[in-house]
């Protein structure tokens, strides 16, 4: 290998150099970016990283961009936070949250993958970019393209949350609402990418795009003081993120930045769209497609392209996958906000509820260092909390009124049970 990285077919091994392509023309399997780790060895060091910017580009030596690329879309380096109060509720003593609810610029982990995809779109000379999206990717592509002056065509299911639609259109993107679900959008995108010479971040740019997810794993290891956790709990839509965190850890081990140790990977889905979780439970990497029916629309991919790889990675690690109901998802969103001050979207509710269940069922030991990945922001899916909080009557601006209000509150609180129970909490021993 002469370049820092190369596009390769993971099934048959055919090499494609660096070009906008995602499917092997020999066996029609997905292509993946593979790095020359020997070349990276002198460039991807703890010291070199520490001198880099406080964003995901500090790991650029293992991201598929040229040595001369000047990043214009800083994203990542989000907080890794201990979660003692949530932990106390769910029986965890060493729980951390990777908080991509505050990933910039559009408040989801998709800003990371889009930063890498658009860098490649520019390098390949595309003036128009696009994607199929369940929302967060649409927001990230729209914002990133606006910053780089690229034209956009973004395909979304027509029933997407209003906030995610607004958060795409505000950047001037051309939004195409599709009368169908994400899988319909994605299929149409494949056809469009075959016809038009555009850069679709999750079609012909997908191998590059997916590498951006590795930065979640690099950051977790660095923020833990260059060590790996015992467990990762991660939401799954297409199934890419969990495999890329695993790849990041493998690369860190191969280059000697962290000590090798087993890490278990746990996947989280909504029961209304759980093809990967089901495959893991059935001990297979064959994915049976589903028709999604869940409020967790950002995870509603019924035919997840990376599903086989995600299932394989989880099972090979000794981990597990679970899925939770819509009611549990909403409870978990509230619980995470109340205990740790993090307002996540439905996908984060899925991860939180599944994490709780994993402790409850004894699949994660309370003392193990566990990182749950929160990938999106609750301000984008406020509709799922519609009617959850009643508004009190306005009081006059008088101290007496305030005192009466406090008295009333105290009386109400006494009537209520001591604590809301988190999804899965009833199983806690």
């Amino acid at each position, binding site marked *: 290998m002469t370049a820092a990285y190369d596009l390769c077919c*993971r099934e048959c091994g055919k090499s494609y150099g660096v070009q906008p392509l995602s499917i092997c023309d020999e066996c*029609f*399997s*997905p292509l993946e970016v593979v790095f020359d780790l020997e070349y990276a060895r002198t460039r991807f060091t703890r010291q070199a990283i520490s001198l880099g910017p406080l964003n995901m580009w500090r790991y650029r030596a293992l991201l598929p961009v040229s040595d001369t690329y000047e990043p214009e879309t800083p994203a990542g380096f989000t907080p890794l936070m201990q979660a003692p109060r949530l932990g106390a509720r769910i029986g965890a003593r060493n729980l951390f949250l990777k908080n991509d609810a505050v990933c910039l610029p559009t408040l989801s982990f998709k800003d990371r993958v889009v930063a890498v995809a658009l860098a490649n779109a520019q390098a390949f000379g595309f003036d128009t970019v696009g994607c199929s999206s369940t929302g967060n990717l649409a927001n990230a592509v729209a914002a990133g393209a606006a910053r780089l002056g690229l034209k956009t065509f973004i395909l979304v299911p027509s029933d997407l949350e209003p906030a995610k639609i607004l958060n795409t259109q505000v950047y001037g993107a051309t939004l195409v609402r599709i009368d*169908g679900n994400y899988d319909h959008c994605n299929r149409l995108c494949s056809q469009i990418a075959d016809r038009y010479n555009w850069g679709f971040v999750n079609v012909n740019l997908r191998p590059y795009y997916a590498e951006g997810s590795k930065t979640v794993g690099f950051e977790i290891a660095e923020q833990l003081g260059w060590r790996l956790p015992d467990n990762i709990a991660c939401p799954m839509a297409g199934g*890419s993120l969990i495999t890329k965190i695993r790849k990041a850890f493998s690369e860190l081990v191969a280059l000697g930045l962290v000590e090798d140790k087993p890490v278990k990977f746990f996947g989280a889905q909504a029961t209304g769209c759980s093809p990967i979780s089901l495959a893991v439970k059935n001990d297979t990497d064959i994915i049976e497609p589903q028709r999604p029916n869940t409020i967790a629309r950002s995870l509603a991919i019924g035919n997840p392209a990376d599903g086989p790889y995600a299932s394989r*990675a989880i099972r090979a690690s000794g981990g597990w996958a679970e899925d939770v109901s819509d009611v549990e998802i909403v409870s978990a969103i509230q619980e995470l906000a109340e205990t740790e001050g993090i307002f996540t979207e439905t996908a984060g509710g899925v991860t939180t509820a599944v994490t709780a269940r994993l402790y409850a069922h004894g699949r994660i030991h309370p003392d193990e260092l566990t990182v749950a990945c929160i990938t999106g922001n609750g301000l984008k899916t406020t509709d799922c909390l519609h009617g959850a909080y009643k508004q009190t009557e306005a009081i006059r601006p008088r101290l007496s009124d305030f005192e009466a209000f406090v008295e009333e509150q105290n009386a109400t609180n006494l009537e209520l049970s001591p604590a809301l129970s988190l999804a899965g909490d009833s199983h806690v021993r």
Partner: protein
Amino acid sequence: MSVKVLLPNAFQKHTNNVREIASTAANLSELVTDIEGRFPALRQHLRGEDGQIRRFINFYVNEEDIRFLGNDKYSFKEGDEVLVIPSIAGGCA
């Protein structure tokens, strides 16, 4: 009875750049045989070592995944449009 079949760019190297065919196949199994008959070079690429169609290749009928319609059990109808689309995944680790 004839159905319209749209082939992906990834196949074109093996189909002399043919993107679209009309087929009289009655079902998926017959359609695959028809495609392989027209484009013999495609056959070895379409099937894995086990002789089965590679799992990353998806078939859709009028926007519906053929797996939801019963795969081989589905009988094509006049005017059906069949899409052949490889899965696009980010690759594995």
